[in-house]
């Protein structure tokens, strides 16, 4: 009997991944009427269940290859109905190792953040709507990374934008948070409309919305180039890459810290969108060298501008937000180098795959350590009520665990061994150096500046004598420490065993991304 249940769960997991957070989100306001404790348990259970499903699905995908799930068909893997003439008419979820990796990221971070926010948000009102929106954010992210249908991607992107905007504005904060949310939301609405316009172009040209179907018919005409520019501009804006980064520091610094950590994951879902469009939709029909260089330039700009803007910041979350921009640059750089040599097998083998693996490895690492850093900033704020670095000091005496977690996160982001940031940055350095030494040097200099900036932050928050105004500061509550602890443990484990992680998780994802034929044949069969 239990075997049957497990089989059903595995078979239905792509649908459950969306359905569970949605159902838990919709019942959250009603459960919230009973009592706060019951609601907290309900939300944590919902997130734990979602994470479990995501991990089961990811395990299944890594073990047995790409999974497709067709909504409304007689069988979950029946992509092409008999009478449709070989066109996938239904909504299809296509979960390949790259999608599975993104699901793992969202699942782990989401769970850690829920545990954290049970304590960090307890002093605020309106928590039922807070958790409802949070679960909707999870739904949006999970949907974006697993869908195999472009219009569906747009719908989940909008779910994510609306939920995120609501959460950024959640603590009105004399209107400042609303201002940040408004900026984010106007930009992402315009971006989403650009994406919808591009989807319309694809539909007009290829009579399909399914990614695999469009990919198999891709001609790379002028219209496709217009569509590519629209999608790329919109998604690059959503993932906070320079020159469309200006919403990031505002939104990241005004959102509650737990939400900021989730916004990092949300940005990476947009980054996933860029990679999916470039590699699966277009692949070698692109002029890969040109587009690859565009991605590389975006990446380098993000790295340099992000880190130089970060150094003078006084607000610790604003500072970290600029570092998030700078780290996004590494991912774009790594994957961009992979794209630039795509289609040239010897170069791909010698450094292209390593560069892509480095970039993709950096996505998961970044979600972990940047999430951790934002959570520690939130813990400090929870106790002393300010983000201003000049008003902090001497907290190392009273918040020892928070300090330890901050050190772990800061060393990881600066790329110091044995933490995970070092592993992925090293892969990016060595492969990019073969491609173009100057790029690798820039990446290393940015890394050093990052370290310098975090040494300063560490010093002003935790070091020095105990300040009189912070005399009665205590350690953060236990559930916040557990939330941070989960992320810190992963940061360390990934740093100590990078080989194992790269071989089991990252390399399949990178190969799935470059192998367009496998993606198409998983949906359309044969081809």
């Amino acid at each position: 009997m239990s075997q049957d249940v497990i089989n059903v769960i595995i078979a239905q997991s792509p649908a459950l991944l969306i359905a569970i957070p949605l159902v838990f989100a919709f019942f959250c306001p009603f459960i919230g009427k009973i009592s706060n404790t019951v609601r907290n348990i309900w939300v944590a259970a919902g997130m734990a269940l979602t994470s479990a499903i995501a991990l089961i699905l990811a395990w299944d995908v890594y073990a047995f290859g790409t999974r497709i799930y067709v909504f409304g068909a007689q069988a979950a893997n029946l992509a092409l109905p008999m009478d449709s003439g070989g066109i996938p008419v239904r909504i299809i979820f296509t979960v390949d190792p790259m999608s599975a990796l993104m699901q793992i990221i969202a699942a782990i971070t989401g769970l850690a953040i829920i545990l954290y926010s049970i304590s960090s948000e307890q002093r605020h009102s309106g928590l039922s709507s807070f958790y409802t929106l949070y679960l909707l954010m999870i739904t949006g992210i999970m949907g974006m990374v697993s869908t195999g249908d472009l219009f569906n991607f747009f719908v989940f992107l909008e779910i994510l934008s609306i939920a995120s905007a609501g959460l950024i504005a959640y603590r009105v904060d004399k209107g400042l948070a609303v201002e940040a949310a408004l900026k984010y939301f106007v930009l992402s609405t315009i971006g989403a409309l650009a994406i919808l316009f591009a989807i319309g172009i694809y539909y007009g040209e290829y009579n399909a919305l399914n990614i695999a179907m469009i990919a198999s018919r891709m001609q790379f005409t002028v219209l496709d180039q217009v569509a590519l520019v629209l999608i790329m501009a919109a998604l690059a804006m959503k993932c906070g890459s320079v020159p469309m980064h200006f919403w990031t520091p505002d939104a990241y610094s005004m959102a509650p810290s737990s939400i900021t950590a989730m916004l990092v994951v949300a940005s990476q879902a947009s980054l996933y969108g860029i990679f999916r469009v470039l590699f699966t939709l277009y692949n070698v029909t692109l002029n890969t060298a040109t587009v690859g260089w565009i991605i590389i330039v975006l990446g380098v700009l993000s790295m340099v501008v992000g880190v130089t803007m970060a150094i003078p910041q006084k607000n610790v979350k604003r500072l970290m937000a600029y570092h998030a921009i700078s780290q996004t640059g590494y991912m774009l750089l790594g994957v961009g180098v992979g794209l630039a040599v795509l289609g040239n097998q010897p170069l791909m083998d010698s450094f292209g795959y390593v560069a892509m693996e480095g970039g993709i490895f950096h996505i998961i690492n970044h979600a972990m350590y940047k999430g951790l850093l934002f959570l520690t900033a939130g813990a400090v704020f929870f106790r002393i009520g300010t983000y201003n670095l000049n008003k902090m000091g001497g907290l190392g005496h009273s918040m020892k665990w928070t300090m330890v977690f901050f050190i772990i996160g800061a060393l990881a982001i600066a790329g110091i061994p044995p933490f995970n940031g070092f592993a992925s940055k090293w892969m990016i350095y060595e492969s990019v150096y073969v491609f173009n030494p100057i790029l690798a040097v820039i990446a290393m200099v940015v890394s050093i500046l990052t370290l310098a900036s975090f040494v300063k932050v560490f010093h002003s928050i935790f070091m020095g004598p105990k300040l009189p105004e912070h005399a009665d500061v205590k350690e953060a509550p236990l559930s916040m420490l557990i939330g941070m602890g989960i992320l810190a443990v992963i940061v360390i484990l990934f740093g100590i065993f990078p080989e194992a992680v790269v071989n089991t998780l990252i390399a399949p994802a990178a190969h799935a991304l470059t192998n367009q034929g496998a993606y198409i044949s998983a949906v359309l069969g044969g081809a």
Partner: protein
Amino acid sequence: MFFNIPYIAVVVLALIGLATVLFKRNLIKIFLGIVILESAVNLFLIALGYREGGIAPIYTNAPAGEEMVFSTVQALTLTSIVIGVATTAVMLTFAMVLWKKYGSIETNKIRRLKE
């Protein structure tokens, strides 16, 4: 020539929408610009789905041998309109809160975020 009119309208609407978003200071006008942009995209989708002489895809009503319109874009447009209503509602809510807190919805007066 005649067939291209909807597409020309799409471009004109999109330009009006973008210009409104970029050059207006009043938040409500910016939102209206976004709504116009949205209409442009919706019109584009609907125009793509138009088939000369096609009939509605209802099996029981269809005379044999006639071309039926594949109704995907119409479905897309409906979804996009619903999403548009939701986004407009969220934006108007933000404008309301800002009006209460700042006493203004002119973009040059609500820039307190940059110290």
